[in-house]
């Protein structure tokens, strides 16, 4: 199925849920409201043949109002097309429905995302930390946790890119 067609189908079916459709990057990128994420991805899987969840990861844009995002990459083997679905939520209510009912692969990937970004996947069967230690009390990939020791005074951040 051609990209414009998928766009039209999605816009048709989810006109209130789809926030943005972007074709400029390497694959069709759809941003949807978080309330509809399971519905949209379920539709992509059941109706449009995106049977394979390639990747699921979090992202943090501290300057946005809805700062925390989850990025899903889906793959349709039959037409050999990929689609990227994004959804955003605020740091105050970092809750997004789980995809584990649709894809068993989402289990650990969601745990990893929770582990690093603190995004709570509601309905997940076992949402505990996976790579970090259990007693870690912060979410390390959020941007407010800088990698380097910020008490250092001998290094000027301007010279190191950030």
């Amino acid at each position: 199925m051609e990209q414009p067609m998928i766009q039209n189908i999605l816009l048709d079916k989810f006109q209130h849920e789809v926030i943005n459709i972007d074709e400029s990057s390497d694959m069709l990128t759809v941003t949807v409201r978080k309330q509809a994420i399971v519905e949209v991805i379920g539709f992509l899987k059941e109706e449009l043949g995106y049977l394979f969840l390639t990747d699921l990861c979090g992202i943090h844009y501290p300057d946005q109002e809805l700062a925390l995002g989850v990025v899903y990459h889906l793959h349709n083997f039959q037409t050999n097309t990929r689609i990227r679905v994004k959804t955003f939520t605020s740091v105050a209510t970092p809750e997004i429905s789980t995809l584990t009912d649709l894809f068993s692969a989402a289990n650990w990937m969601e745990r990893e995302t929770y582990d690093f970004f603190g995004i709570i996947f509601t309905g997940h069967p076992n949402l505990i930390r996976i790579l970090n230690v259990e007693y870690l009390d912060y979410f390390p990939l959020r941007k407010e946790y800088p990698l380097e020791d910020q008490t250092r005074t001998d290094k000027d951040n301007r010279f190191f890119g950030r």
Partner: protein
Amino acid sequence: MEHLGKEHILIRPEDYDKNFSTLNLGPTHPATHGIFQNILTMNGETIIDAEQTVGYIHRAFEKLAERRAFYQITTLTDRLNYCSSPINNIGWQMTVEKLLGVETSKRIDYMRIIIMELARISDHLICNSVIGVDSGALTGFVYVFQEREKIYEIYEEICGARLTTNLGRIGGFERDFTPAVIHKIKEFIAHLPKVIKQFEDLLLRNRIFMDRTINVGGITADRALNYGFTGPCLRAAGVDYDVRVMKPYSSYGDFDFTIPVGTQGDTYDRFCVRQEEIWQSIKLINNALENLPEGSFHMEVPEFYLPAKEEVYSKMESLIWHFKIVMGEMDVPVGEVYHSVEGGNGELGFYLVSDGGRTPFRLHFRRPCFIYYQAFPEMVKGSFLSDAILTMSSMNVIAGELDA
């Protein structure tokens, strides 16, 4: 210390009256071939349930990458699947090239294919010979490790390193293949079929090996897709998905090769798929060597490709580029790319988001064995402990890739 997850280790109260025992397989058990733990609930010799604990060698690569210049991230990717690190290196470099819009020449592509296929051979050799070891046949392991050593010598000749190779650069290679490299590859490829044949004679139709591996740790194609399997494990289940064919990168489209698929998705099929992939890799390397075009071994990417040392010492402009690259002062364009290569274990993906700074805004590695290892309990439930160990080694779970 009560928050250390003891509830997973202790027997649950509802299981008190059952004759289940708990067995800790790992974290440093030799059969796990890496540091990760399996807590098995056993009824005698039968596995009732398994629970994996991963993260023992988690090194926060995704966070580290956010403070590193692009060329410095290649060294992080070495340490993902360390049995085939050149694939990871080149995969990352191609991701950056995709973001920068750099098209590489055929010569670079073919050189990359040669190296990536060598890495795939070394990965599959280790995995398959270890299946042999875990089923009690140590001999084959010793045979093929000599060949792996030769592959490492080729790496050494190309880039100076053996395990964590940091091979190649953004835009090509740091130096051309020397005659010694070509000679070593040719010698290796000429000799390898004999050894693989010998190895297959030992195991492929061996009654004991077949009894130990057929119908062990099987998974259906449907479940495998649902679990996000890729690579040999998915193909053993009967799905012919290979990134090299579905989205040919690095001129894989120029070559004629077959993607082997299995039918049962069990340990034996995974073994056979890997063996056949070794044969296909040999064919690919031979073809790429024969048709290796002349030309430069790197593209003109002055912003990211280090100039030659002689020029740095003699030309002002080269010195400036050298300084800027080494200090990581090169801004990258704003963009978002996902690029994947067929690693030893499956689709190794790089999701790179750049905000126009000097480092990635976000970099996520899609590590194939992290995703498919979660199917392990489903695959071993109801089987014997010795079968679980074989299943694990045939899934080729590499701790570095698991934990990133």
